[in-house]
């Protein structure tokens, strides 16, 4: 019963204003389409600049380049949507990549799917540990995953002991995965696309998926609505870990040679991809399609810079500028919407 929060005052006695009632504005994936448009424009422009950009090999490289980052971005989006963050994904991916390779090296006869499942399992375990720490001990995700960023990476280094595992220690069948194509799309990229679509479908069509948005939107209200917030958050972290594990497996398959530094420093690029794709750090907003498109955009920029005769060293600055414009744009749109809908502008 506070009198400060309710926007009241002179009552308009005229005809009803269109405060959100008259014209319904359904949620459309405008944000995702914007990123898609940017990707298309960038690809088209680069192609005009140099048709070699879209040669068979060029497309292949583009696909493969985006694979790992988009899988990671999808996982990160799951966590960000619940208003958490996972900074340990780079380390988890590195651990899985090395773990998968080490398994092949240690047990030469091991079936390929089993080793891959093990790699994903390592990631899932790491994610589960993050989630449990966040949900049960109530430690902020930023702190927990900053800690596990070091711990997982350190564990990986300790395991690898400075060594690396080379392609010849891994079965041909596994390494060939990187070269196989499905309908002209490299298999890893196809896997990534399947992951994006499946996760997107899950988030949109399952109760538990929608509940992730509810939690990020207002955790207190979610609890009042009977949503088991803790369990969902743990699940989101575990899924993110599993996807980071998958990214590690894909990384190993593609490069063939891994040491324990795989994915070093990757966490921030992953968060960047998700944010550029419209997933809000403040939770509750965004789709995995957007996150994946953000990853594609970042990789495409990397690939396009040399063609535009721009020094590759501009890459990171461009990424930074892109993140800032993305959050600035989101903020601007939010403010404009708030103003258009009237009210809600109280307080700071």
């Amino acid at each position, binding site marked *: 019963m506070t009198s400060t929060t309710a926007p009241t005052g002179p009552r308009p006695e005229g005809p009803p204003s269109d405060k959100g009632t008259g014209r319904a504005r359904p949620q459309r994936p405008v944000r995702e389409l914007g990123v898609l448009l940017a990707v298309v424009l960038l690809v088209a422009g680069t192609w005009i600049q140099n048709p070699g950009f879209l040669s068979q090999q060029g497309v292949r490289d583009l696909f493969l380049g985006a694979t790992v980052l988009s899988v990671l971005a999808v996982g990160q989006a799951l966590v960000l949507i619940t208003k958490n*963050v996972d*900074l340990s994904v780079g380390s988890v991916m590195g651990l899985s990549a090395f773990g998968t390779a080490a398994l092949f090296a240690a047990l030469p006869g091991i079936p390929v799917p089993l080793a891959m499942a093990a790699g994903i399992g390592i990631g899932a375990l790491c994610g589960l540990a993050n989630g449990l*720490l966040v949900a049960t*001990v*109530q*430690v*902020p995700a*930023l*702190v*927990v995953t*900053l*800690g*596990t*960023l*070091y*711990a*997982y*990476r*350190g*564990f*990986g*280094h*300790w395991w*690898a*002991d*400075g060594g690396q595992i080379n392609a010849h220690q891994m079965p041909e069948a596994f390494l060939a995965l990187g070269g196989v194509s499905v309908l002209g799309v490299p298999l890893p990229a196809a896997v990534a696309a399947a992951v994006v679509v499946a996760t997107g479908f899950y988030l949109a069509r399952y109760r538990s998926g929608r509940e992730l948005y509810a939690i990020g939107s207002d955790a207190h209200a979610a609890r009042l609505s009977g949503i088991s917030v803790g369990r969902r958050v743990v699940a989101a972290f575990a899924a993110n870990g599993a996807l980071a594990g998958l990214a590690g497996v894909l990384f190993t398959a593609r490069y063939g040679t891994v040491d*324990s530094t795989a994915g070093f*420093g990757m966490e*921030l*690029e992953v*968060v*960047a991809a998700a*944010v550029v794709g419209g997933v809000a*750090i*403040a939770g509750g907003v965004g789709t995995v399609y957007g996150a994946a498109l953000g990853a594609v955009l970042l990789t495409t920029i990397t690939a396009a810079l040399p063609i535009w005769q721009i*020094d590759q*060293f*501009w*890459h*990171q*600055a*461009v*990424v*930074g*500028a892109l*993140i*800032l414009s993305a*959050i*600035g744009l989101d*903020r601007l749109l939010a403010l404009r919407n708030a103003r258009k809908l009237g009210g809600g502008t109280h307080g*700071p």
Partner: protein
Amino acid sequence: MAPERTAPAPRPREEPAPRPGRVRSLLSARESPVVAALLVSLVFASFFLDMFATGRNMGFLLLSVAAIALMALPMTLIVITGEIDLSVASTLALSSATLGVLWEAGIPIETALLICLVLGAALGAFNGLLVTVFGLPSLAVTIGTMALYRGLAYVLLGDRAVASYPQDWVSGVRAPFLGIAGLPWIAVAILALAALFAVLLHATAIGRSLYDIGNNTEAARFTGVPVRRTEFWLFTLSGTVASGAGVFWTLQYGTSRADTAFGLELQVVAAVLLGGVSIFGGVGTVLGVMSGVLLLGTVRNALQLLGVSGDVLQIVTGLILIASVVGPNLVASLRRRIPVPTILRPPTHHGERP
């Protein structure tokens, strides 16, 4: 049905017992575990490692944590107000790269240093502008500027390194203080700076208002604290100090590279949190943070002397960080479960609000 009219006469309260409070608050403070851990690790390392307590090793240890210690000071203030600055390591790198480019262009090093500091202030002010004027979350903003500033460093230097710094400057930053072996003057300078920050935070009106902002921004506003202006200047300060750390780092290693100090921001944040500063804001001390920085440095140094590989160091760093946050939370939740003896409870309340 009539309202009670009899106002109970206010009981005069006996004067509170004279200050066992100070000792108690020292013991129960959040940073005391870190301080204790630091002391224990110093004692252990000195006893069991012959190499540890030598002047050479001490100097090495102090130099290795100097940049982190520097950046941790303004970071402490920022985290206490409930914000964060992840761009410090990139600011350091950009400042270092700028120094390199200016030096190569033949600008006197003194002038170049000054330009770097001004640049750092501008980079910090840009963060502050985005956070306070545009109202963007500092976490997202500084992830963005972390990439941007690092990127600009690459733009300036590419993968080149500038290493032609004048030898007297390079050896100058590592010089011992008053000839005392194992005590670099930079360590003394940082100590003095830390004392300054401690005074600012713990014994001035501004310092008090930082805690208020972190604990309850709304109440701070109602008390006349200029919240946005304060936060703007904190980010500016952070940028300035980070570029100072960049200058120091450059001269310490005698080289400028764009990828320098990559990932150092996380170590700075880790040290600050380890030192007992709450990520939610409102809690923390300079003493705790400096102990956190030194604890991380000591453990790392000792393990290195033991021949433990860098990998275990990272595991230990991560685990210490997690333990430092999980610990207090666990203790708090245990306390909630165990009933407090009546005698320790605060006085009975009248009219607690429902």
